[in-house]
């Protein structure tokens, strides 16, 4: 593919101003700089690297489980360790890998895609990462001292309650949930405000890249879904720590309450992982089919519809529980209905590929492979919307097969597609195509060999979460096949790591826009400067770099002697204000530490509440203490010019 070099956006006339811009946005040096940085790109990179480490650890846990299950009546791993392993695997994959990495990809790309310098609340963003990191370390520190969670990632009461889960295992799990929920809510807030208020002039809602739409829907879902489990996990912690009885039927509590609170979060969680996956597919299809995605409006509306319907599915995790049958029917209907918006997206992708000119680079292979796997998972998803059929396969390996097809096809393969696609932008280096294709084929084959036999195992009666099975059940052969598949997946991930390492060591230098892609993140250097764009671009279509291949129109006028971002209106992205932008600070880190002390101390004593509240208030108080300079000064623009109904280009003159 040709890789035209660009000189975009138009450089500042004044090279002194550029030097000043670099100086103003540069993070501090050294370790202190690392702790105080508020650059969305550094923070998102940390998030992504941490989440990938979590992915590897959860993968190793899966490998240990597959080794144990490869033979009937195997004694490699005992029940206590096995229960910790599958609880760690599920918890890590859901709370510490899939959602954080998708949100982190959004935190990296959204400001670049909408053409702004940073996220809306950069210090809060930094704080969110540290809180997430503390949660991840807490969970693995617990596991290292034989205190990993043992009641599953779903931690059903009463099994997770004080009577049946002694020790600190479940307490650590419950507080880890709190940490990840805080981090998730922080990141969601960033994304929503950044997307609605910081888009480049002219990027009206109908020109917003599909990826950004996907992150917006995801962020709203996070805000509505996560409080449910955050409150639920605190109820659980209180039941365990101070003998409340929210979930204790003997004292008027109810075991089913937990299931509702958990799945009201837990099912939307699937779409919180999966909508960014589809958004990645939609983001990279234009570059590799040489056309914009077919049916922009249909795809965007499908994602929004999925976001709404996704909240009406949670009871389908509870079809075997005592829930009124008539009420369950609603959830059958919703679980069926959600196939329609997802079908629309798949059909639009097929139309895009069919009418485009596909270029089979690694990102497109991962995207197509992901779609194929996801279709299989979607079909079994419709099957289990049927209550009678679900009651036969619920909590069996059929379900394990189903959701791994959904998550690998809808989340992991699209994520790898995205990594191959944006790696040159993030690092300035290209990944190897040869290793990339090897990675893809190993993974595609491995996923199917691992998980397809599990459908059969489930129908033959193999329940989930069993540490062993009797030889007489006849499940041994298919389990051995699944384990061989898992080895293949392991090899594919090792290939990926080798690819990343070799790209860092001797990878080909990436130009600014190696794929000739149409969206704004490719309009800056690879890797982007700390301030993202020298000048804020002006957008006149959904594919700005294709419509202005030579140079982008820009707005000028943001000050270079301090950090500033341009605020625009939520619907039409008309310039609205210049906003002074906060600088680096250690206090987000300190607040995260205080929150960490808060919840970790709570595992051991209710005094944690007192200590933690005081420490958090001190940290936040210093962070937010007015310092006399104009951190929050809004610079109003002349309203009449914005209201004059001029063209985008004319509006941008306002800032000159």
């Amino acid at each position, binding site marked *: 593919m040709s890789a035209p070099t660009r000189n975009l956006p138009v450089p500042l006339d004044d090279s002194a101003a550029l030097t000043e811009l670099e100086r103003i946005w540069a993070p501090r040096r050294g370790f202190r700089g690392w702790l105080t940085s508020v650059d969305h790109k550094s923070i998102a990179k940390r998030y992504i690297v941490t989440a990938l480490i979590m992915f590897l650890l959860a993968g190793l846990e899966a490998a240990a489980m597959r080794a144990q299950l490869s033979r009937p009546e195997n004694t490699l791993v005992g029940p206590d360790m096995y*229960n910790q392993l599958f609880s760690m695997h599920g918890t890590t994959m859901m709370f510490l890998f899939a959602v954080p990495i998708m949100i982190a990809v959004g935190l990296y790309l959204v400001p670049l895609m909408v053409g702004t310098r940073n996220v809306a609340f950069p210090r809060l963003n930094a704080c969110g990462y540290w809180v997430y990191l503390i949660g991840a370390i807490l969970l693995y520190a617990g596991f290292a001292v034989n205190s990993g969670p043992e009641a599953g990632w779903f931690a059903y009461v009463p099994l997770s309650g004080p009577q049946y889960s002694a020790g600190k295992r479940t307490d650590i799990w419950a507080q880890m949930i709190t940490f990840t929920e805080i981090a998730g809510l922080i990141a969601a807030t960033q994304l929503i405000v950044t997307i609605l208020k910081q888009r480049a002039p002219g990027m009206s809602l109908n020109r917003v890249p599909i990826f950004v739409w996907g992150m917006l829907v995801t962020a709203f879902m996070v805000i509505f879904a996560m409080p449910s489990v955050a409150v639920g996990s605190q109820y659980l912690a209180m039941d365990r720590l101070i003998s409340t009885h929210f979930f204790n039927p003997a004292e008027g509590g109810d075991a089913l309450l937990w299931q509702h609170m958990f799945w009201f979060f837990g099912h939307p969680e699937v779409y919180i992982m999966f909508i960014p996956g589809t958004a990645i597919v939609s983001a990279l299809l234009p570059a590799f089919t040489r056309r914009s995605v077919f049916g922009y409006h249909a795809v965007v509306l499908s994602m929004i519809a999925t976001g709404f319907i996704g909240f009406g599915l949670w009871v389908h995790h509870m079809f*075997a529980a005592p829930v009124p*049958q008539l009420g369950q029917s609603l959830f059958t209907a919703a679980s069926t209905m959600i196939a329609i918006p997802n079908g629309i997206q798949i059909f639009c992708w097929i139309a895009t590929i069919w009418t485009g000119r596909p270029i*089979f680079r690694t990102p497109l292979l991962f995207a*197509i492979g992901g779609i194929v796997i996801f279709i299989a998972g979607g079909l079994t998803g419709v099957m289990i919307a049927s209550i009678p059929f679900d009651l*036969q396969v619920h909590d069996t390996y059929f379900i394990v097969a189903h959701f791994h097809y959904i998550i690998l096809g809808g989340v992991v393969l699209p994520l790898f597609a995205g990594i191959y696609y944006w790696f040159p932008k993030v690092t300035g280096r290209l990944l190897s195509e040869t290793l990339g294709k090897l990675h893809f084929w190993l993974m595609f084959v491995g996923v199917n060999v691992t998980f397809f036999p599990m459908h059969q195992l489930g129908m033959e009666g193999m329940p989930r979460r069993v540490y062993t099975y009797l030889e007489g059940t006849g499940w041994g052969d298919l389990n051995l096949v699944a384990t061989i598949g898992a080895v293949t997946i392991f090899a594919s991930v090792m290939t990926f790591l080798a690819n990343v390492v070799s790209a860092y060591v001797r990878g080909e230098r990436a130009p600014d826009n190696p794929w000739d892609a149409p969206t704004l993140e490719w309009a800056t250097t690879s890797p982007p400067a700390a301030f993202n764009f020298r000048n804020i671009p002006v957008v006149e279509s959904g594919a700005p770099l294709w419509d202005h291949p030579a140079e982008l129109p820009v707005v000028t006028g943001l000050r270079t002697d301090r950090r500033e971002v341009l605020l625009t209106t939520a619907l039409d992205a008309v310039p609205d204000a210049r906003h002074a932008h906060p600088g680096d600070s250690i206090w987000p880190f300190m607040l995260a530490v205080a929150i960490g002390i808060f919840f970790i101390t709570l595992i051991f004593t209710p005094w944690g509440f007192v200590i933690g509240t005081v420490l958090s208030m001190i940290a936040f108080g210093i962070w937010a203490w007015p310092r006399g300079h104009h951190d929050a000064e809004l610079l109003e623009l002349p309203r009449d010019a914005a209201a004059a109904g001029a063209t985008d280009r004319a509006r941008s003159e306002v800032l000159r």
Partner: protein
Amino acid sequence: MLQAPRYAQQSMIDPAGPKAAAVYDFWLFLIVTSAVVFVVVVGALLFGALKRRPRAPERAVPVDAEHRVARIVGGAVAATALILAVFLTLNWKLERAIAAPKQGNVLTVDVIGHQWWWEIQYPDSLNVSNWISTANEVHIPVNRPVRLRMTSRDVIHSFWVPNLSGKKDLVPGRVTETWFQADTPGVYRGQCAEFCGHQHANMALLVIAHRPDEFREWVAAARAPASEPYDSLRQAGKQVFLAGSCSLCHSVSGTPAYGRVGPDLTHVGSRRTIAAGTLPNTRGHMAGWILDPQRIKPGAYMPPNGLEPSQLNALLAYLEGLK
């Protein structure tokens, strides 16, 4: 290597009763429809990706062709909606068909979940002495619907015998119900389907479907008190049972042993398995289980029992005799 007892293969695609058969028929519809949809959609995707294309400018942004494509995509969406409507209709009919047994004369069985075994009771409201209590085996007559009333004494479990019926959870503090019916005599295996702790994997049960006359015989035998030991070895075994720790947790009707923590052992000698479907009920396995249950089911609540060989021998003889 433990040898599993010989069961009917536990599987939902080998139905042995009307409820499971109706779900199986619906499954056939699902699998065929899904296979067709998968082949068509993935076929379109791969054909669209791999078809030969005429040479053209590097970046093709078709405009006029979009309308035709839009109609095809709209048609695909309509077809999806139609298939889903058929699915919902058939599903609704299936739900109605299996919601409750069609005929009367329903046999009621109570199931109580424990970590990690199943307590099975046959209530008789007219005569309490007819009440049957057993464990890990549900004896039923064929061609007669069975209604299960279920609850749990500890954590949530789930009752599932795939050849006969889908799942229903056993929830502490609540009573749940489900029903099934067996068409042919046989032994159908099921196991707990809701994760319930350390030995979730080894919490199985057998449904044993008898011909009606055999079932009446079984009921008569099950209602009888434990058979009195008729030789000195077994009498010694009974003393071991009563004097040792066994009777703290287990009960044997007609004796002072009335522990309610573990399974009722009144007729343990006639059961097919021990340790909730984990081992065949043979003398050797029973000996291994009594001496060291933790080796077989790590985490189980039964403690190891350091018995002298002579005591063990007597106890085994006694338990064998509890037919």
